C-alpha cells in the first residue's frame, strides 16, 4: 500500500480538486475506528453524495483497497503549565518558554561505545523554542536558573535539534545528520544531562523508564495501523490510543498564539486516535512525550494535537500527531536507551535511595507554596530567591563555604525543614552532631559575608537578627509563618524590616 500511495495520491488529486492528500490508515465509521485498512482521502470539505455528480464521487475502493473520505484536520502545538518531579520520561520540562514533556533518554550514535553520554529527547519547540541555542539550559519542573546546585531545577543542556519552518525547509541546530535543505520532517531535539563531565559538579539522576508506564526497552522496528499504544505526558498523564494512520499524512501545524503561522509536515507524521479509556490522547503540555507499544518500545515522538481552526481559535479533538521514532533517531543520529537486556544499561542509573536530591523538588515547591500564602512569606521567599544562585554557587564551588555548610550539617537541616513542610509531624532536631541550627546560621552568615558579593554581605548584615531569632523559635513551618508575621515589612522596599536604611 505504501508503494502505491504516491500514484494513488497523484491520481486522486488530479481528478478530484477537493482532495488535499491521501493517507494509509484505518477506515472510520463516525467517531469509531474499524480494523479495515484503507486509503484515507482527505478533502477540504465533505459533501453529501446526493449533491455530487457521479464523476465527482470518490470511488469506494482503489485497486481493491477500500477508501475513506475524511475532512481535513489542522493541528496546534502543545505546551505546558504545571509541575512534575522524578527524572524519568513523561515529566514536565521547560527552558522558561512554555512547558513540555521529557520524552525518554537516548545516546548519540557518534559517541564511542563505553563513553556514551545520556541525553533527554523532547520536541524542538519545547527545549529550543523561539530563543534556544546549543547549550540552553533545560529545567525540571520549573525554569532553569543557570546554576548547577543540587536544589536548582537545571537538568540538561540543549545539544541539537531539528524543526520544520513555515517556508518548508527544515531548520537544524547543533550536530544532526539532516542533509542541508531538507524539507520539514520532524520536530525533535536532545539535551545532554548535566553532571557527565568531570568538571561538572552537579549530579543528575535518571531512571530509564516512563512514569506510570515502566522501563523503556529501546525503540520498535516498525509501526502499523491499528497498533495499540500509550503515552505519558505532563498534562493528560497516561493515555491510550490506536495508530490510525502511518503514511502520507499532510499535517499543518498552526502556531498556538498566531494560527496564521503554519508549518507543514508532509508525509512524515503519524496519527493516533484516543481509545475509550481517555477522551484525549494528548493536550497542551504533552509535547515531547514518547508513544510506546505494548512491549514498552518507543514507536513515536508526540508533537501536536489535532483540531480545527475557527476564527483564529484552535479546538482540539483529542487525536495526537507524532513522528515515527525511526525518523527522529535517523535524523538526529541517536538511539533510544534500552533496559533489561544483556549488555544494556541498568534499568535505573542509581539506587532508589540516591534519588533524594531530585525528590527534594516536591518539598521545595510545597515550602514555596506555603510561604507565598502570607504577605510576609512572599517577601521572605523573594529574599531567598534574590540570593539563591549566588549562595548555591558558593556552596558548590567555594571550599570554605562548602566545608562550613557540610561541617555544620546544612544539608541535614534543610532536609528536615523541607520535610516538615509537607509533614508537620516531622520533628526538627534541636541539634545534629552537636551543632544547632543557630550554629549553622552563624557560621554560614560569616562565610557568606566573607566570600560573597557586597549585596550578599549586606543581606547577611540586614537579616542576621531575624535569622537568629527565627532559628531559636523554629519548630516547623507554622512557627516560621508566625515568626514572619512578627517582623513588619519595610515600607520602602516591602521586605522584612532591616537595619540599614535606604539611601
Amino acid at each position, binding site marked *: 500500500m505504501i508503494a502505491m500511495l504516491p500514484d494513488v495520491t497523484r491520481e486522486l488529486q488530479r481528478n478530484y480538486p477537493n482532495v488535499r492528500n491521501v493517507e494509509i490508515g484505518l477506515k472510520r465509521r463516525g467517531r469509531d475506528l474499524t480494523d479495515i485498512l484503507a486509503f484515507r482521502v482527505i478533502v477540504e470539505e465533505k459533501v453529501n453524495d446526493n449533491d455530487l455528480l457521479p464523476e465527482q464521487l470518490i470511488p469506494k475502493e482503489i485497486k481493491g483497497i477500500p477508501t475513506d473520505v475524511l475532512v481535513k484536520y489542522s493541528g496546534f502545538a502543545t505546551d505546558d503549565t504545571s509541575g512534575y518531579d522524578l527524572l524519568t520520561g513523561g515529566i514536565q520540562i521547560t527552558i522558561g518558554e512554555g512547558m513540555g514533556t521529557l520524552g525518554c533518554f537516548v545516546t548519540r550514535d557518534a559517541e564511542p561505545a563505553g563513553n556514551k553520554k545520556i541525553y533527554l529527547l523532547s520536541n524542538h519547540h519545547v527545549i529550543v523554542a523561539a530563543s534556544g541555542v546549543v547549550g540552553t539550559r533545560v529545567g525540571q519542573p520549573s525554569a532553569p536558573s543557570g546554576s548547577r546546585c543540587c536544589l536548582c531545577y537545571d537538568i540538561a543542556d540543549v545539544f541539537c535539534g531539528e524543526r520544520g519552518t513555515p517556508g518548508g525547509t527544515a531548520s537544524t541546530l547543533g550536530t544532526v545528520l539532516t542533509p542541508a535543505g531538507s524539507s520539514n520532517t520532524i520536530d525533535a531535539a536532545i539535551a545532554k544531562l548535566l553532571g557527565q563531565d568531570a568538571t561538572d559538579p552537579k549530579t543528575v539522576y535518571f531512571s530509564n523508564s516512563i512514569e506510570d508506564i515502566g522501563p523503556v526497552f529501546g525503540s520498535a522496528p516498525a509501526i502499523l495501523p491499528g497498533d495499540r499504544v500509550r503515552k505519558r505526558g505532563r498534562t493528560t498523564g497516561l493515555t491510550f490510543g490506536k495508530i490510525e494512520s502511518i503514511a502520507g499524512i499532510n499535517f499543518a501545524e498552526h502556531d498556538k498564539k498566531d494560527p496564521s503561522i503554519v508549518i507543514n509536515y508532509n508525509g512524515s507524521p503519524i496519527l493516533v486516535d484516543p481509545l475509550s479509556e481517555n477522551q484525549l490522547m494528548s493536550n497542551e503540555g504533552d509535547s515531547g512525550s514518547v508513544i510506546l507499544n505494548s512491549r514498552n518500545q518507543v514507536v513515536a515522538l508526540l508533537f501536536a494535537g489535532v483540531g480545527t481552526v475557527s476564527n483564529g481559535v484552535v479546538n482540539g479533538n483529542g487525536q495526537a500527531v507524532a513522528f515515527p521514532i525511526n525518523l527522529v533517531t535517523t535524523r538526529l543520529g541517536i538511539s533510544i536507551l534500552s533496559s533489561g537486556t544483556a549488555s544494556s544499561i541498568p534499568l535505573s542509573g542509581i539506587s532508589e535511595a540516591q534519588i533524594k536530591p531530585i525528590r527534594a523538588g516536591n518539598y521545595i515547591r510545597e515550602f514555596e507554596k506555603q510561604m507565598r500564602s502570607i504577605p510576609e512569606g512572599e517577601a521572605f521567599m523573594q529574599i531567598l530567591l534574590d540570593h539563591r544562585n549566588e549562595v548555591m554557587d558558593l556552596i558548590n564551588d567555594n571550599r570554605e563555604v562548602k566545608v562550613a555548610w557540610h561541617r555544620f550539617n546544612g544539608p541535614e537541616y534543610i532536609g528536615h525543614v523541607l520535610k516538615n513542610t509537607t509533614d508537620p509531624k516531622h520533628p526538627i532536631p*534541636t*541539634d545534629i552532631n*552537636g*551543632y*544547632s*541550627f*543557630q*550554629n549553622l546560621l*552563624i*557560621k554560614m*552568615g*560569616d*562565610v557568606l*559575608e566573607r566570600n560573597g558579593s557586597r549585596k550578599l554581605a549586606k543581606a*547577611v*548584615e540586614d537579616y*542576621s*537578627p531575624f535569622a*537568629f*531569632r527565627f*532559628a*531559636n*523559635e523554629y519548630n516547623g513551618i507554622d512557627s516560621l509563618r508566625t515568626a514572619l508575621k512578627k517582623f513588619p515589612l519595610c515600607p520602602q522596599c516591602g521586605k522584612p524590616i532591616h*537595619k540599614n536604611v535606604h539611601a
Partner: protein
Amino acid sequence: MLYDIEILDIELRKTEAGTRLLQVFNAHVDEVFFLVGHHRQVTVAWQRNHGPAFISSFLETNITPDTLLKKEINGVTVYALIRRMAAALQEAGSPALRKAIGDHIATVLEWTEACNSMNDVLQRLKDMSALPYETSLS
C-alpha cells in the same frame, strides 16, 4: 575598670535573668579569654573588628552619664563584631561554648539593637524572669 565590672556583677545578681546571665558568662569566660588571647583566628576577629574599643565604649556608658554605646567604629558595626566573634568562637571553642553561643546570639543582637548603655541592659534584665531562647540550662 575592675571596679566597674564588680558593680555590674552586683547589679546583675539582683535579678533572676541577670544571675542566669552571669552563670552563662562565668561558665565560659575563661575559655573565651583564652581563645581571644591564644587562638589566632579568634584573636584576629576580635582585633580586626575593634572588640576592645567596643568593650570600652560599653563600660564607658556606666562611668560617664549620657554616654551612649558606639554602634559603629571605623566602619565596623557592633552587630558585625558580635556575629563574627560568635562564628570564630563557636568554630574554635568547646561544644558547651558553641551551644551557649547558639542559644544566646539572638538575644545579644536584639539587646544590642535596643540598648544604648549598660543601664538599658540592666533595666531589661529586671523586666524579665529568664533569658529567652535557652534550649536547656546545662
